[in-house]
């Protein structure tokens, strides 16, 4: 007996599964089966901070979204809501009449790309068709010339969402106009920026939208084959995309003579093998060709000479996902959103020390403060907002004092940062900006392909200086040396990796110089992060001698007996912080500066 009264959806994207959604699903399936309901698997609603998410929709279409639904809470929802007809108010994050802290997270967004995320079943093409899927492709193949498609995208003002912001229609036009029979479209799904997960969510939760955009792009530029280059770290995205490609082929949206139009198009997936530099377009092409992913000099641009020497257009996942919407709703409806030079919406991955982290889609031009406070709910730790990092290793750290800056390509560039692909990391007072710069340099130094001397050796030298500073061995002249090296690395590198690698260092030097000075002059880490510049202390009056810290210390640096306050041997201590985590009595303190001699 089928229960028509309720529909139930469980979000099963990577974030959800990591938070335990798989167990929730397994738990809820038999419980719902007893009520005649089969729950639908959906993707990511973007509310990563309160995963696992379960949505209940009643016969009138009203939606109730439950958050933090671990397996043990599933039974309660089924008992009280499905069987009893009373929503479990205290577990609701959305759909309650009462004012919840969660509502602004969605209410303040403007969801175009994310509209159907977490609503449709990513494994079902019918689910995509129900929400207008492949209408754009049908329209394009039925009534538009490739030139008209390119003009429409141009009128919408769509710019590349991978970070550089190059006008999409120009890329398409150049590839279309290039001489050559065989042309390719490549979807760049090598979302390598640490802290970014927009593309993963799109591919996992709505793969057909990306695929549809790609087929339209193929038609516009005159390509008959396409590649999706996706990171191997995203197995679920690859799986769902593979399912989508097969389904699109079965329904005639891919393959020979698509929808009877005479247009042929096929798509292959290539899995990346763990190289950040492959997000750079020429390196990406090398990798698809089966070589080491090392960027090459441009020109010739890929539009002239790309994959296997043929004209190739490379677009980012999010860029392509915008295409069906623009075609379906019209360029005007799209370009109404955003600012003069940055049209449409942009999806950000909000994470770090923010209360509500997840996927955020906003019209361009919203300010940083609006994102952090109105949508993100402010700082999770209750401390002060210190900085936001955008654009990953290529981007910059923007201080809280510039929180009024509108988020668009040009405004962020003006203050030394970049919009980048959409990673947005929120930092509080406990974040050491020198450590952040060192973190990014460690990353870029590690990921430099080694082709250009300045990138290969320059980032290494910069990292050595930053290591020195965080170890309390830096001098003030190191700061000038860093700035000088940064300029050289930017000038002497062929691709974006090297050209932008110094950005995190330059922006932190510009906006947080005091913190650098504290490290080099006073040998102090104000945020108490840098291991060499802190030490741990046990306050004897607060210590109850429970022994938890002693048992947890991996190097046996803590001594003490029953009813005797414990003591840390500073010579043995490796400052791992495990004792601090294990102490339930707040008896352990992180102190600034090198350890002082301690009386035993």
């Amino acid at each position, binding site marked *: 007996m089928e229960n028509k009264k309720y529909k139930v959806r469980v979000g099963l994207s990577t974030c959800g599964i990591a938070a335990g959604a798989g167990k929730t699903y397994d738990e809820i399936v038999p419980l719902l089966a007893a009520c005649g309901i089969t729950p639908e698997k959906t993707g990511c609603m973007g509310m990563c901070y309160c995963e696992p998410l379960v949505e209940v929709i009643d016969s009138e279409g009203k939606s109730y979204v439950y958050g933090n639904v671990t397996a043990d809470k599933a039974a309660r929802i089924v008992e009280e809501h499905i069987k009893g007809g009373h929503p479990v108010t205290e577990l609701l994050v959305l759909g309650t009449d009462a004012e919840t802290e969660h509502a602004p997270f969605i209410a303040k967004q403007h969801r175009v790309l994310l509209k159907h995320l977490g609503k449709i079943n990513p494994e079902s093409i019918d689910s995509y068709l129900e929400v207008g899927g492949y209408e754009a492709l049908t329209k394009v193949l039925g009534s538009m010339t490739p030139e008209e498609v390119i003009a429409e995208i141009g009128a919408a003002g769509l710019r590349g969402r991978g970070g550089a912001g190059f006008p999409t229609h120009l890329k398409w036009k150049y590839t279309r106009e290039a001489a050559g029979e065989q042309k390719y479209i490549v979807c760049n799904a090598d979302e390598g920026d640490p802290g970014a997960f927009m593309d993963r969510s799109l591919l996992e939760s709505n793969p057909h939208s990306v695929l549809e955009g790609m087929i339209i792009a193929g038609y516009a530029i005159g390509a008959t084959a396409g590649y999706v280059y996706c990171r191997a770290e995203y197995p679920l995205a690859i799986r769902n995309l593979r399912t989508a490609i097969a389904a699109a082929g079965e329904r005639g949206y891919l393959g020979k003579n698509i929808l009877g139009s005479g247009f042929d198009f096929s798509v292959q997936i*290539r899995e990346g093998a763990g190289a950040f530099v492959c997000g750079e377009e020429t390196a990406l092409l090398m990798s698809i060709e089966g*070589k080491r992913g090392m960027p090459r000099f441009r020109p010739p641009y890929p539009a002239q000479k790309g994959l296997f020497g043929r004209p190739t257009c490379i677009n980012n996942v999010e860029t392509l996902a915008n295409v069906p919407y623009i075609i379906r709703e019209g360029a005007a409806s799209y370009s109404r959103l955003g600012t003069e030079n940055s049209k449409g919406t942009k999806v950000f991955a909000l994470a770090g020390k923010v209360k509500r982290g997840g996927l955020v889609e906003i019209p361009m031009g919203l300010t940083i403060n609006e994102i952090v406070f109105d949508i993100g709910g402010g700082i999770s730790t209750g401390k002060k907002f210190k900085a936001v990092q955008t654009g990953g290793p290529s981007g910059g750290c923007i201080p809280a004092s510039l929180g009024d800056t509108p988020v668009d390509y040009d405004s962020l560039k003006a203050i030394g940062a970049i919009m980048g692909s959409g990673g947005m990391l929120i930092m509080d007072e406990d974040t050491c900006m020198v450590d952040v710069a060192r973190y990014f340099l460690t990353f870029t130094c590690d990921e430099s392909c080694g082709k250009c001397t300045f990138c290969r050796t320059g980032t290494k030298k910069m990292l050595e200086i930053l290591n020195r500073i965080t170890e309390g061995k830096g001098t003030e002249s190191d700061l000038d040396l860093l700035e000088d090296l940064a300029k050289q690395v930017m000038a002497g590198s062929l691709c974006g990796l090297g050209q932008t690698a110094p950005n995190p260092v330059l922006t932190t030097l510009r906006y947080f110089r005091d913190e650098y000075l504290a490290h080099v002059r006073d040998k102090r880490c104000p945020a108490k992060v840098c291991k060499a510049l802190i030490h741990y202390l046990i306050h004897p009056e607060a210590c109850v001698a429970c022994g938890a810290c002693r048992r947890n210390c991996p190097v046996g640096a803590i001594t003490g007996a029953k009813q005797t306050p414990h003591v840390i041997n500073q010579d043995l201590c490796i400052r791992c912080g*495990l004792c601090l985590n294990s102490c339930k009595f707040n008896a352990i303190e992180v102190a600034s500066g090198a350890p002082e001699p301690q009386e035993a």
Partner: protein
Amino acid sequence: MSRKKNTAVTAKDPVEIIDAIVRKHSVDRGATIPILQEIQQTFGYIAPEAITRISDLTGIPESEIYSIATFYAQFRLQPVGKYIISVCHGTACHLAGAEKISDAFEHATGAKAGGTSEDGLFSLEKGACLGCCSLAPVVNFNNETHARVTADKAQALVKAARAAAAKEKSPKGESQHGKQEV
């Protein structure tokens, strides 16, 4: 090829398996990376003998295959442990204390980051980024992603894996690993 116990491949000759993988991909252009990926998936790592065999079959010089295998972080040229632990060191995870989580795993497993524990049970890696930034710090423990990992949780995961491995080895009773002091 038969260096150690490759349980997955004892049924068939490793060379035959490699041949089948290469044949399957050889129709595609630029298939070196997919070939290496499938070989690693099958054997857990890429042995020197496998590189020689791919070279023999495809005509691509061994040096070139080796240069590709060492360029990409995904490829491993050494055998790995029974459990592969990848601690995400993306930005959000770094801010949330990924370093501490890596330390905790090092202490609990005895493996150094990038290496394998002496008992061959655990391989420890640092990765970036698993893309679950809002749930940092994140760890992939044998293909299962764990969110908001703490040092305690890291120790518990390792302990449970050790117990499971010991049980597999001597199904009758407790092994010496079973009674680890916490």
